[in-house]
């Protein structure tokens, strides 16, 4: 099978990329999804707050997905469901497996990677203790409750204050479980402030900063966890242990871009984001392969995910048509003062530069985001590690640049 643009993954990034690839003139667009329905993780995110920026609407995840799916179904984009991509080669041949087509190879002029991310597990953070039932990644518990209709436990402790953990604290409480507390190893919360308010404060669920789980007890099922306070170096403080009786531990301890396929294709990955090193066109280090959404870097808002999906779809269509010129060597974009990570990491002189920036340390006063060269300075009211900053530098200001672009955040 041949395609102009093949998109891997049908979450918000992939759906948006497929729609925009078609809209930008690619005639044979194929969308590959390993599950039995389109929509990706949005289907289990039943809470509202999606699309406020993009659609000026307060959608739930399923509504946001259905809006995109309806848009897609008005096009002739071909959707292959139950289709698992098992291999991706640098010359853009995709190998898929599905009950309908068996093993099928797709030769694509350009490819958009939109595989999203995975949750970190107990193994990634190394909690000691026994290995009983009742320990779930927060997103897995979310799927059990919101799609399969199962309550994973009655008395829960949540480790990590990422947004999924906060959302699940509220969800379990509404379903009649008791959420004893949310414990966060850092001295500041991981999720959005509005989620602290409407998911924890609204339900009287305590948030314990600078605390972590240091032991898990129980044979068949979780019976208790031990939590400890941590010092400035994040080491547990001896004598601060507290035993908490519970039957469930949810882990909301971070997300990792899912890049097994990217590695197979030989795509260069960023050690900072865990995703492909990407240009402003969303093109990766392998020509004709683009990446967008949480496979690139974990974004805070679906609106940002969709924005990168739109750029990837548009530029993948241009590439397929032979219309994306690479006459100039791209320059690197590097993290300066108080910048933990950046997306994209390269500028290829094809489009305006929309930068997503995560601060290393919180600054609660007005900050200047400096992009140099060209020396653009953009003011923001604050910089917080849990809320990405987004700044735009128009292409007209960037055409003369020869050296790497450095991005810094400074208190005003």
């Amino acid at each position, binding site marked *: 099978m041949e395609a102009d643009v093949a998109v891997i993954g049908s979450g918000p990034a992939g759906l948006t990329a497929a729609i925009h690839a078609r809209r930008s003139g690619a005639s044979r667009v194929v969308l590959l999804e390993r599950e039995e329905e389109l929509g990706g993780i949005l*289907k289990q995110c039943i809470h509202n707050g999606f699309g406020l920026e993009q659609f000026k609407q307060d959608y739930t995840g399923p509504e946001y997905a259905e809006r995109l799916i309806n848009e897609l179904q008005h096009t002739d984009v071909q959707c292959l469901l139950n289709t698992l991509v098992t291999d991706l080669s640098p010359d853009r041949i995709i190998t898929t497996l599905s009950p309908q087509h068996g093993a099928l190879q797709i030769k694509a002029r350009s490819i958009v990677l939109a595989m999203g991310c995975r949750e970190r597990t107990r193994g990634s953070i190394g909690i000691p203790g026994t290995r009983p039932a009742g320990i779930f990644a927060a997103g897995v518990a979310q799927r059990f409750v919101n799609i399969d*209709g199962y309550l994973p436990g009655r008395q829960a402790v949540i480790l990590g204050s990422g947004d999924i953990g906060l959302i699940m604290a509220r969800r379990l409480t509404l379903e009649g479980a008791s959420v004893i507390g949310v414990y966060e190893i850092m001295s500041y919360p991981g999720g959005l402030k509005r989620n602290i308010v409407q998911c924890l404060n609204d339900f009287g669920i305590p948030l314990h900063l600078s605390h972590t789980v240091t032991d898990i007890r129980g044979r068949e099922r979780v019976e208790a966890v031990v939590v400890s306070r941590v010092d400035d170096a994040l080491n547990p403080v001896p004598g601060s242990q507290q035993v908490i009786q519970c039957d469930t531990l949810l882990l909301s301890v971070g997300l990792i871009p899912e890049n097994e396929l990217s590695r197979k294709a030989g795509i260069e990955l960023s050690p900072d984001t865990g995703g492909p090193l990407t240009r402003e066109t969303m093109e990766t280090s392998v020509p004709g392969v683009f990446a967008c959404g949480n496979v690139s870097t974990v974004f805070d808002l679906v609106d940002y995910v969709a924005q990168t999906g739109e750029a990837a779809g548009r530029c993948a269509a241009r590439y397929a048509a032979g219309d994306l010129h690479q006459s100039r060597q791209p320059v690197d974009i590097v993290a300066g003062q108080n910048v933990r990570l950046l997306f994209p990491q390269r500028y290829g002189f094809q489009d305006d530069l929309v930068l997503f920036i995560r601060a290393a340390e919180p600054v609660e006063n007005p900050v200047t985001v400096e992009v140099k060269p060209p020396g653009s300075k953009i003011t923001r009211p604050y910089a917080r590690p849990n*809320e990405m900053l987004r700044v735009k530098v128009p292409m007209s200001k960037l055409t003369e640049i020869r050296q790497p672009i450095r991005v810094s955040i400074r208190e005003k």
Partner: protein
Amino acid sequence: MTAQQQHFVCVVCPIGCEIDVVHDGNRIISMEGSKCERSEEFVTQELVEPMRILTTTVRIEGARWAVVPVRTDKSVPRRLFPRIMRQLRGITLQAPINMLDVVVSDVLGTGADVIATRTMTRE
């Protein structure tokens, strides 16, 4: 009632404005930190009766999945959440259902309908 100070975080949008309000129990005397009209409305309402959208699921039969996601189509008093949840627990829907179909109209006399937030076909 004497003037008292209260701190709010607006949940209308992801910015999450932090707002300091001085009020006397009924009337707002001063407000600082709000960046838009919507957050001022939010705080005014928050002092009287906190209102939220409720999102949850309801059992469904004949569909691919066991439950279908639903929400209130406008904000309802937060204190009614447990009672609305109890009412929804007693309901089992039959597939097919369309996004925005009404599951319960005027739930607990709030004027809000509980609506489905996705389409589920009959399988």
